[in-house]
Each structure stands twice: as C-alpha cells, then as structure tokens.
C-alpha cells in the first residue's frame, strides 16, 4: 500500500505482593536478626538445601529441620555482567553461586570486592573453587540483597 506503517507504544506496569511463605520468611528473619544463613535438611536425599525449601525435589519428602551453615564457602560458578539490561543494575557486576560450608546446594548472590574492569582478568580471580565470605549489609531488610560474597 506504500503508506507509512504506524505503531503504538504500550507500557505494562504491574504490581504483585508476593508472600514468601513460612520457610523463606524464616531464612530472611535469621539474616535480619542474626546475620546467619540457615538451610533445611532433606534426610532421605542426605542434603542440606540452600536456599532452604519446605520439601526436597529428588525424593518428594518434606525437609525436617533447620541447619545453620558457615558464612564462607567456594565459588561454584560466576559471570561478569558487562551489558546494561533495562531495569537491572549498572554494569559491570559479578554474580555467582557459592557452596557454603555445611550446605549441599549452591546459593546465588552478587560477588563484590573484585576489580571487574577487564572481564578476563576478573574471571581468573573468580574461578571455580575460589574461597569467599558472606557479607551482610548494615541494615538487612529481609531479602536476597541483604548479603553478598567477597573473596576470603
């Protein structure tokens, strides 16, 4: 038809209030009140789940008790984000998964305290097996941004 194709802009602005449930709520209360991370024991699978969950997906059994884990562990994977994604933090930043001592599954979080200017050099400092410590913000709010990891 040769005419200019028209377009319309649509914005979705949706708000949800997500309940965390009993298990995750306790996890965040422990962070807020005691600056410690607690997992849930899945006895049949022989694992301490971190982050804690009410049941174990391997055997479909409920987890039984709370297990405090150490505030240190080893990096199991990481990435250095160099691209600005809309609504996400200003790059560069590193995120990773850490197997905390006493846990059997790895916990995700930001990794700070490493110069990320050159991603390949930074990757060497973050490689799998690197020991890290858990750090907490001064006034925890009860969410995953209350803690992060730094090389020990």
């Amino acid at each position, binding site marked *: 038809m040769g005419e200019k*194709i028209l*377009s319309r802009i*649509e914005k*979705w602005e949706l708000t*949800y209030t*997500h309940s*965390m*449930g009993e298990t*995750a709520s306790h996890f965040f209360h422990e962070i807020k009140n005691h600056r410690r991370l607690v997992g849930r024991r899945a006895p049949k*699978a*022989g*694992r301490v*789940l*971190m*982050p804690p*969950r009410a049941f174990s*997906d*391997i055997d479909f059994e409920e987890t039984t008790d709370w297990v405090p884990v150490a505030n240190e562990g080893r990096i*199991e*994977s*990481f*990435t*250095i*984000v*160099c*691209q600005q*994604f*809309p*609504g*996400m*933090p200003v790059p560069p930043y590193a*995120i*990773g*998964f850490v*197997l905390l001592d006493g*846990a*059997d*599954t*790895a*916990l*995700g*979080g*930001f990794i700070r305290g490493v110069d990320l200017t050159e*991603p*390949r050099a*930074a*990757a060497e400092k973050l*490689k*799998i097996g690197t020991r890290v410590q858990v750090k907490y913000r001064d006034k925890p709010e009860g*969410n*995953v*941004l209350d803690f992060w990891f730094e090389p020990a």
Partner: protein
Amino acid sequence: MAMRRVAIIGSGQSRFRFRRDDATYAELVREGVRLALEDAGIGIERIGAVVYALAPDALIGVSNAERWGAEAVGVDKPMMRLNTGGATGISAVQAGFYHIASGLFDVVLVAGADKVGECGHAQVVLNKIWDPLYERALPLNAINMLSLSAVRYMAKYGMTEEHMAMTTVKNRHNAARNPNAHLRDEVTLQQVLDSPTLCWPIKRLDACPQSSGGAAVVLASEEVARKLCPRPAWVRGVGNCAESYFMGDRMGPKAPQDHADATALGHSFQAAYRMAGLSRPAEEIDVAELYAPFSNTEYHAIDATGVCAKGQSVRLMERGHFELDGPFPVNPSGGTQCTNPIAVTAMLRVIEAALQVMHKAGEHQVPDVQTAIASGNGGDHQFFGTMVLSSDPG
C-alpha cells in the same frame, strides 16, 4: 505400544528478521500456516485439530494471544495452546504427534509466531521466570544463566572462548545458505572474540538475535501421509525430561545433575531413541538440529545426543566434525544462534530436521539424510524436548 504411525507432511516458515512492521501478529501466524498448507498440498478444511505454540505472553505484549492467532488457524476446530518457554515449538509438535498417534485425529496443524523485536525488555520478561523470593533479584536472565553454565563447562572440559567462537563461525556459515535465517552474515573467529562482552564469557556474537516471524507444521496419520506426500518425515521417537528448578542444585558434589551439562536433555534423547529403536546414535543419525541459543550451549547439547562422550564435542568441533560437510552436521540451518523467534524456535528445529529428511533443505541440505534429530530447551533446564525423524516409517 498401540500407537499409530505419524508423519510430518508439510511445513512453513517466514523469512525471519528483527521486526516485521508490515504484518500483525495474527498475520505472521497465517504466513506460516499458508506456507505449510501449500507445502502439504491441502486446504485448511482438512485440519482436524490445532496445537498452538506461544511462549510467555509478555514477550509479544498480548495476554493469551492464541485468541488473536486463532483466526489464522481456521475456525470451528479443537485447539489448545502450549507454552514450555524455549521448548514451546517442539512441545507443540509432540502434542500434535500424540493427537494422531492416539487415533483421535488424522491431520493436525501446529502453528505459532513471535514478534520478539517489538519487546524492548526481553531480558526483563525472561528474568520473571525466576522465583520472586530467592533468585530474581540477583538478577538472573537467559544470558547470565547460560554464562553460569559456560563457566562450569569451561572448568570441566577445557572449553575456551575460542571454542565458543568456532560454533558461531560454523552456524553463521550455515545460516548464510538458509534464506529464512535472520543473521546471515558470515563472521570470523576474531570478530566473535572482539565483539562486546554481554555476560562473560558470552559475547554479542555468541548470542542469538531477537526474531519475528511465523512457522507451522502439518502432521498426518500414515494413511493420509502415504496418499499426500511422496517422502514424509516419520516421527519415530519423542522424549521429554526436566531438571531441578534451582540452578544451585546442579552444583556441588551431591548434585544429581551438573549445570555444565544438559543431563536431562540426554535422558530425553535416550527416551526418543528407545521409541525409535536407535542404539548407536553416532552411526544411525545423519544430522542434528539442536536448540542452542548461545555458542557454548551447543557443546552440552551435542554431548547430550550421545554421539560423543561428554566434553568430546569441543575436540570434535576443532576438527570440523559438526560442519555442513562434516561427518555429523549440527544445525545446518544456522540454528537458534542465527534465528530466535522464541515461540516457534524449537518448532524450527523440527521443521529443519524434517526438511533434511524430506531432502527439501535447499542450499543447506546435507546429502543422503535418512534420520535426523531435533531438540528444544525451555526454562532453565526444565523443558527438554527431543524428536527422531526418519524417511523409514519403521
């Protein structure tokens, strides 16, 4: 198992690009459907049921857009929508297979489309696949999720950034021969390595594009297929398998799977091979169309097919094993890395595998193909769909 034989007798796909401003979403669905019906040599009135492929609504910004697309697949028919994220397209073809294998329908249309180029926030939409309690705020998205896999694969098997770049070079070479592919410019190893880092080690040229276009498949019972199609692609096997929801459960000494690998994709292939009666995949399969949106993920996908030991795909790639004229061509179409209209991406894997079996792939045809495999990956390793197609009805 008392199942009826099922074959793919026709397929259609758009010439994919970033945006299709000339056509609405429903018009893109119709584009794929019209091409598939023409290819099958039938009219819409022959379709007994429709399986509709549509991934997360927010990617095209229309809730339950299958309502809109319904006008392009024919009225007054049974229709269902399937959404398994990136695997949606192959899941939809599998559902079409079940419709016919069960004996309930004779001809089924599988169709869908995507307009990912209209979404300014694709990674924001994909970030919402993570739970709002523990992981969404990290923030995870499709790119860094698979960077986390790449880093583990590097440590476990010695994959380097150069190996990742080799995949891109191969796939772009193939896409240059596929008129429907979105990214068709050939690139060099150095161009890939010099492209900007998105989430290390994934760089811009390791990544898939956001594509728009439609696709459709016509499936038929044996009786109909033999009448209408001189060389159908028989669906010989289908498989599905899921991994844990939490990525961190795939790390550490007690992990049942490793996030480096695609363990459940391997299980899914094994299930499809069992159904198809295959036991020596490296000898029995001629070509593979594997869902691999980022260069690194093609390696764990190849490993999962069982044509080589885990990690060996890296060494074989160095020797050109998976190239168009190599011993085991992978993604002769250029694959997901060159074309990614999310809702139908995994359907394209099936379509391209079918075209290879039907000897209709044109410039990217692998000679003498009898058996081809296809796969689709959805979520964060939750939806692995696989399919074996063959010129032999079995």
